[in-house]
């Protein structure tokens, strides 16, 4: 069986799925809102493509709605062992020893700091 077959086998899910955003946003409005929250600049072509694709992906993942998760504790992290804290002791950091090496990767440098364009 091929991949189109694989997606077909999930096709039954699509019938039971509604578009994830109950608001009457268009795809483009949705993308623009998310892009602004994520600080992403998009071309108009990207807005169109990403909106359509995102909608399809969200429709697909809405299948999780069928799973009964009442009372199930979310698993945020696979190692649920207690994280042990280290002692709060000062030790040399990268920056004190390798200033030049670190600054070499910066887009713009001014003396020993990062330079950014005026934004106000």
């Amino acid at each position: 069986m091929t991949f189109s077959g694989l997606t077909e086998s999930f096709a039954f899910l699509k019938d039971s799925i509604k578009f994830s955003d109950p608001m009457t946003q268009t795809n483009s409005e949705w993308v623009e809102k998310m892009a602004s929250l994520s600080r992403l600049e998009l071309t108009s072509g990207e807005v169109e493509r990403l909106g359509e694709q995102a909608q399809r992906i969200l429709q697909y993942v809405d299948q999780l709605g069928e799973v009964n998760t009442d009372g199930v504790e979310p698993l945020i992290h696979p190692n649920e062992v207690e994280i042990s804290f280290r002692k709060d002791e000062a030790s040399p950091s990268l920056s004190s020893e390798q200033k030049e090496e670190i600054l070499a990767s910066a887009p713009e440098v001014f003396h020993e700091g990062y330079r950014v364009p005026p934004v106000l």
Partner: protein
Amino acid sequence: MKALNISDLHQSYLTRTISPSEVVRELLSRIDQSKTNSFLTVCRERALAQARDLDVLFENSKQIEELLEKKPLFGIPIGVKDAITVRGVRTTAGSRILENYVPPFSATVVNQLEQAGCVILGKLNMDEFAMGSSNENSAFGAVLHPTHPDRVAGGSSGGSACAVREGLCSFALGSDTGGSIRLPASFCGVTGVKPTYGRVSRYGLIAFASSLDQIGPLSLNVEDSARVLEVISGKDPMDATSAPVLVRKYSDFMKNQTDLSSLKIGVPKELNEGTFDPEVENSIQEALRWFESRGAKGIEISLPHSKYAISAYYIIALAEASSNLSRYDGVEYGQRKKQKTGGGLEKFYSSTRSLFGEEVKRRILLGTFCLSSGYYDAYYKKACQVRRLIRRDFDQAFNQVDLILSAVSPSPAFRLGERTSDPLKMYLSDVLTVPSSLAGVPALSVPSGENREGLPIGLQLIGPSFQEERLLQIAHCFEKGRV
């Protein structure tokens, strides 16, 4: 030079038929001639200097055996996925935004391997920020399949799998978030291991999804993966999620005959039914019959929530990615897009971040949505609850069986461009690898055969947490027995 696997190369050193520098020079020239685009950066001078240092040890050593004991990976030439930092060597993570980034520190695994005697030849191509299943999302061009140039090498560690298969290095480091080591390993016909989450330090691995990412080896055979894993495993003070679990000498488990007669192999019906390329299905069935012919018992089991794994995985991975990738603001490192003065701080950030490729943007948008106010419970929290149920499925299965067997991918390497226009279809390439990623358990890909066109097929073996030794031992046994 004979084969590049560790024991053959060490044999050549023992008989002094070749020196580390000669090996490195030969491979650098092979890399120059390669047309698969698997290397993004070749660190020629650095590698030659490392090799010269090893030459000195080599020439001054009366007993090469002792040298190999002290440095278990002495003179082994390797490639490193470009998501893993090597001090002083450009590290891009396959992204324009890090095109000029030269990290001031090496990943813990890199320090460990260099300490053990490895020579780093260069940095390997990958999907941008490890986001992809075909390596077509690299900002620096796709990796071509090593034997079928019209096919993908698999992703996201495509450069790693391809370089090993092509004979450009002995082994490579990759990283696996939802299948990114196993999938390219199966497509290219090499061995690839995703260790238990927490087995290997992630310090110096450029983060994609921190609760899933794990570094692991891609190698010419199972024994080599074991030998690498025993060097890079263990607790690292620089990574709070690395686990303080005893590291065994994994390769020792391969020295003796393995009795398979008491082995119970789980065959999950959800990962083995209906949705396969018939040649892949045959190959996996044959692998199971091989184990059964050695006395192992195949037992049908159920992982009932695995059909929800892709959904849970993409929500969790994208949510974590949107958070992790917020650090690319164009201030401290990486590229900044030229812009006119003014426009405010937000404009400054967003214009720089437009350097991300389209797949990365898609994932950030979706991840931001899944974490956004009003949708967090319905998406992120729900996915984490389903993740718990998936983990329980595995816990229950491992009460019944020693390991779980399935294919790595429902199909062999697909054609370049075949799935690029349909992201969901691309995401479904990972349908067999993400359940174990969500559960955090170790899994590997070992070649199980080829289809009629000569495309490799990979067998996936999944084991209980921190039981890499058994998993590797059984995979080694399968590999040897099938030759």
